[in-house]
């Protein structure tokens, strides 16, 4: 499709874009490099606004709003397709100490570095989001149960191995804790419930000493000997 990029269309000149432009300017977003009020320029403004509402300014990752939208979409998909999907919640260990010792600018560099490391470790189809100060989330569609622990562990390892250059004289090594849960298959769950389950595993990883990944245990349909003996412990034997 060809878009006329010459002079502005008369109708577009009637648009009042002052507030949008002001917003983009204040947010430090790049304004489109095209003739004002041309279609290409307008497209650039819209893209920049969409980015502004979906992206976290520090890391360039999805922000919480976009993340929750992705999560809802993924739940719809899982409910219909039954494909396994994994949600990982990730938190930088002892982040407060980084801020307190080296200052907030150093903290920002660490956050950005972790964001890049996580994004590089997962597939392009996965959504990586910054959902809180030092908290991240990853939605992994079509991720099989056996692959879950591998990907979580790979993220943990890559972050732990990285040397983050905060300044020419300061390099830091940090660790992350991860928690994960799979979406219940074929059931329309809620984003909140799914996040709660992954969060619970994140707390477990923190409680067990940090720098580790904990995933919700997978469904076991096998009945163990212990379960059987307890099941029949006090069963009445009176058959007529």
């Amino acid at each position: 499709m060809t878009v006329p990029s010459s002079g502005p269309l008369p109708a577009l000149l009637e648009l009042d874009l002052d507030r949008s432009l002001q917003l983009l300017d204040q947010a430090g977003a790049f304004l489109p490099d095209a003739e004002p009020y041309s279609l290409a320029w307008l497209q650039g403004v819209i893209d920049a606004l969409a980015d502004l509402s979906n992206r976290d300014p520090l890391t360039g990752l999805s922000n919480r709003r976009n993340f929750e939208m992705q999560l809802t979409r993924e739940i719809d998909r899982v409910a219909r397709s039954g494909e396994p999907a994994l949600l990982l919640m990730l938190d930088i260990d002892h982040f407060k100490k980084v801020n307190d010792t080296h200052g907030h600018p150093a903290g920002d560099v660490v956050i950005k570095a972790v964001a890049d490391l996580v994004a590089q470790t997962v597939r392009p189809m996965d959504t990586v989001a910054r959902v809180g100060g030092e908290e991240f989330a990853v939605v992994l569609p079509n991720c099989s149960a056996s692959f879950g622990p591998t990907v979580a562990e790979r993220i943990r390892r890559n972050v732990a191995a990285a040397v983050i250059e905060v300044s020419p004289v300061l390099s830091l090594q940090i660790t992350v804790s991860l928690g994960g849960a799979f979406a219940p298959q074929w059931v329309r769950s809620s984003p909140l419930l799914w996040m709660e389950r992954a969060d619970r595993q994140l707390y477990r990883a923190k409680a067990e000493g940090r720098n580790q990944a904990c995933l919700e245990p997978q469904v076991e349909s096998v009945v163990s000997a212990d379960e059987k003996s307890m099941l029949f412990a006090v069963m009445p034997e009176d058959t007529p």
Partner: protein
Amino acid sequence: MSSGARTVAITSGKGGVGKTFVTANLACALAARGQRVLVLDADLGLANLDVVLNLHPKLTLHDVFTEKCTLEQAILPAPGGFSVLLAGSGMVEYSRLTPEVRDKLLRIVELVKPRYDWVLIDTGAGISDVVLYSVSLAADVLVVATPEPTSLTDAYATIKVLATQQQRRHLGLVVNQANRPGEGRTICTQLQTVLSRFVDTAGHSFRLDLMGEVKNDAAVRQAVLRRQLLLEQSPGSDASQGLRALANKLIG
């Protein structure tokens, strides 16, 4: 959430525990209380609701799936005053859960829901993906078990999977072929004890409710052999009373 009928899946770990018998007679008991009831035979591999009800359907779910007839044409009146959608033979090819089967079952349930007060989904036995999927279509679940150890073990495994994988917060238990009054209660308590000891429901509470106890009754065998509904054949029998109590408890 869509409105309309209350959807109840009736399932069991082990086959041959009277799942279809309970479903058919429960439908009859609900209909007797003036409720509009549809039984959907989702036992795609080994359907036998037609055998239990002594029906010889010309059109079945299979014909709906292959678009040989409309949904309306395949819904039949059953003895006992309720409607059935039978799986019929030839459904074996659908006993694997393909996206096609999933979509069709989902669509059918959504289409019938506005027209009835109750949609009972008679699933197959076991915990295959088709069974789990058809259970997932229902808001409420009844697990049928007998006091036999093998049946209890399989019911336990089913409940465990539903509680964890589908995050069900409560399930109903129907104890069939109970040998003495109160046996259902004992079994339910026992299952709940083991479940709370071994099953991690990820923090949320899980409850197994005893919804019904159907006595081991000679009248049941007779009705089954004659391919009659127990509630019509021997309405005064102990087992009939248990089934009516189950219906009443569901209606609430």
